[in-house]
């Protein structure tokens, strides 16, 4: 695309994407009901997702008489596709959204609000895990969707490398993490204490939110305005960047890492000893890691947290399921949502994807009784807080994540990143968000 005409291209792209990709379900009342479902990429590939979901959708069709046309949309396209659908009013009937986008998408008004009546239709509010339900939109407003796949961050570590370095347990404090990381860092052997997706905008923003909470940062003012630049947020970003800059436990090459696969591989190949990530046992298995060497623990907190710091080791990550307001089959759409959040489907899908059920009654399945899953379950229940549920959340993620990516690039190139520089970057991000009103 030549972008000299990006504004017109924007209009055209939105219209074209909407026209070609969407279309919604069947509009005729006499025809058999049909829904269009945009699923997010949860498996190892789009085809893998289709293979996982198709039998379930067929089962739903058999039970409810409603056909579901499935499209798995890659994460790189999903938000743009949703925006296009939002603009044109022609979208899928049901779709998956990243739960951190909830408040932003809620602000568009393009999605069916899950008020008490709608929640009742999908099984009732009380079935859902509280933290996951809290990440479904701005507080005081009906959720924009219901939680479908639960996720939380944990600290994965390579037990074999830990044992070789004489470390017997995962770090319990941030200081221990740094100390262990130093013991495990042997650049001459190509081994580093920690792997980071430092070139990944979203991941950077997630860590800024987690460490920010530990430092006592609030990324939005009480009246819901984003506020990135503050002493605690500068401290949080500094703490994260220092893993590469000052502590030197991260390979500077990680500044180029823009996807999870490389970090997973580093941990699996013994090139890195620790990696902070969402539950990803399935992915580790897929890349051939010896699962006996894989351990997981909550991301540690500072030994002496700042007075305003909060006990947060993860944000409430996950995927929500939303219903497009333009659907011609709202009842069928809600039936489908109810099916997807039913206990058997929750158990099956989350087991397959390595994520966590978002409804209480699915946890009785044996697959969710393992030690690793219990770690994430504990994090989600006890030390996870939702990302700021404000309409500008997606801008927050992009801007702070991009700024941190640039900081890591500077550190990798040997340019120092100090508090002044961080504050300056965060101030600029605040100005950019303010421009959006």
């Amino acid at each position, binding site marked *: 695309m030549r972008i000299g005409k*990006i*504004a017109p291209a924007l209009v055209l792209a939105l219209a074209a994407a909407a026209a070609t990709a969407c279309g919604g379900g069947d509009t005729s009342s006499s025809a058999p009901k049909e829904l269009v479902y945009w699923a997010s990429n949860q498996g190892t590939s789009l085809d893998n997702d289709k293979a996982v979901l198709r039998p379930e959708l067929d089962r739903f069709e058999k039970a409810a008489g409603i056909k579901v046309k499935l499209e798995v949309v890659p994460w790189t396209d999903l938000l743009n596709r949703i925006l296009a659908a939002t603009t044109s009013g022609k979208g899928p009937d049901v779709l998956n959204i990243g739960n951190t986008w909830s408040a932003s998408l809620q602000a568009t008004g393009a999605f069916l609000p899950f008020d008490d009546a709608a929640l009742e239709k999908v099984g009732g509010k009380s079935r859902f895990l509280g933290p996951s339900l809290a990440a479904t939109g701005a507080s005081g407003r009906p959720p924009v969707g219901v939680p479908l796949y639960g996720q939380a961050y944990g600290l994965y570590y390579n037990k074999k490398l830990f044992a070789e370095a004489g470390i017997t347990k995962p770090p319990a404090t941030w200081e221990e993490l740094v100390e262990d990381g130093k013991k495990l860092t042997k650049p001459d052997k190509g081994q580093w204490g920690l792997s980071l997706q430092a070139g990944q*905008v979203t991941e950077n923003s997630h860590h800024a939110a987690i460490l920010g909470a530990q430092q006592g940062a609030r990324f939005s003012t009480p009246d819901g305005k984003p506020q990135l630049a503050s002493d605690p947020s500068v401290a949080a970003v500094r703490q994260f960047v220092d893993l590469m800059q000052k502590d030197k436990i991260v390979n500077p090459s990680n500044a180029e890492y823009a996807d999870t696969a490389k970090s997973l591989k580093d941990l699996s190949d013994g090139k890195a000893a620790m990696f902070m990530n969402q539950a990803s046992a399935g992915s580790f298995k897929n890349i051939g890691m010896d699962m006996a060497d894989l351990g997981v623990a909550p991301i540690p907190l500072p030994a002496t947290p700042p007075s305003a710091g909060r006990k947060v080791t993860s944000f409430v990550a996950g995927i929500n399921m939303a219903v497009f307001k333009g659907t011609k089959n709202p009842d069928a759409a809600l039936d489908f949502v109810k099916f997807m959040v039913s206990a058997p489907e929750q158990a099956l899908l989350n087991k397959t994807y390595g994520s966590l059920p978002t409804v209480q009654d699915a946890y009785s399945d044996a697959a969710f009784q393992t030690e690793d899953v219990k770690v994430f379950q504990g994090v989600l229940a006890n030390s996870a807080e939702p990302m700021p549920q404000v309409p500008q959340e997606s801008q927050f993620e992009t801007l702070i994540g991009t700024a941190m990516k640039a900081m890591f690039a500077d550190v990798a*190139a040997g340019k120092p990143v100090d508090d002044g520089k961080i504050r300056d970057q965060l101030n600029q991000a605040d*100005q950019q968000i303010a*421009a959006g009103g």
Partner: protein
Amino acid sequence: MPTALDDAPAVQATGAPAPRTRRKRRRVALPYLLLLPAILLELLVHLIPMLAGLAMSFFKLTQFSIRDFTSAPAAGIDNYKFVLDFDSAVGKALLGSFWISVLYTVFSVGFCWLFGTSAAVLMQKDFRGRGVLRTLFLVPYALPMYAAVITWSFLLQRDTGLVNSLLGTDSFWLIGDNSFWSLVIVSVWRNWPFAFLIVMAGLQNIPAELYEAAAIDGAGWWRQFQAITQPMLRPVNQVLLLVLFLWTFNDFNTPYVLFGASAPKEASLISIHIYQSSFVTWNFGLGSAMSVLLLVFLLIVSTVYLGLTARRRNASV
């Protein structure tokens, strides 16, 4: 059998247009009719969205109003004032991207033209293997854009890339200062065959007799290049440079595929910057204002360039 010409007076007598006139009208109308689908498509694909983009730039179009454009609050010229305030973070970043795009265009177009012209001139004379070389040179242009740039992104990785392996270095090519040069290299690699192709076509229109006469007069290779090749290629070069300039300044694919949606600041072209402002930060009014400014800039440069080259052409006639 009577001819159409024979029928003419009879028809004229009835007062209806003569067949010759009809034929003439038809002949005149035919090109317009043939152009009509293209004009309609042009309107649909370019002009209407362009006007819509222009309209969007006067509104505060964000996620709050994207569902219903008409509910977007009017911004007047606020979006323009905001992006042109070079003391603000947004304006400063836009200006930075603009200058990076200017530098990128200068280097990329310059090298593309230089390599394309050199290769075309060197291969002007027939020699064994010329056809094979010409085909080889065109390979980068024939390769699918995305596949080619993704391959470059693998080659340029620090730890596992072939470039560092060959150079024996551990430099970063996809982040930091080098990222700009990586972008220029990939762009030149991708576009120089186009310059080569166009110049090669231009060279084929230069009569061989001119070179023969010059050779008889004792002109060497360089003199022939200066006195014959360059002047004869001028019309081709004028178009070539304009097209390369517009393509390069607007280039979105190369940086997007090479670096992803958030390019390093050293290689943040204006196209990526506008994309981020529109799609990533959901500020479509601001992004549209930036696009319109870019469009105006490109129109001014193109108009001035075409005006200057036309004046020069007229002066030389």
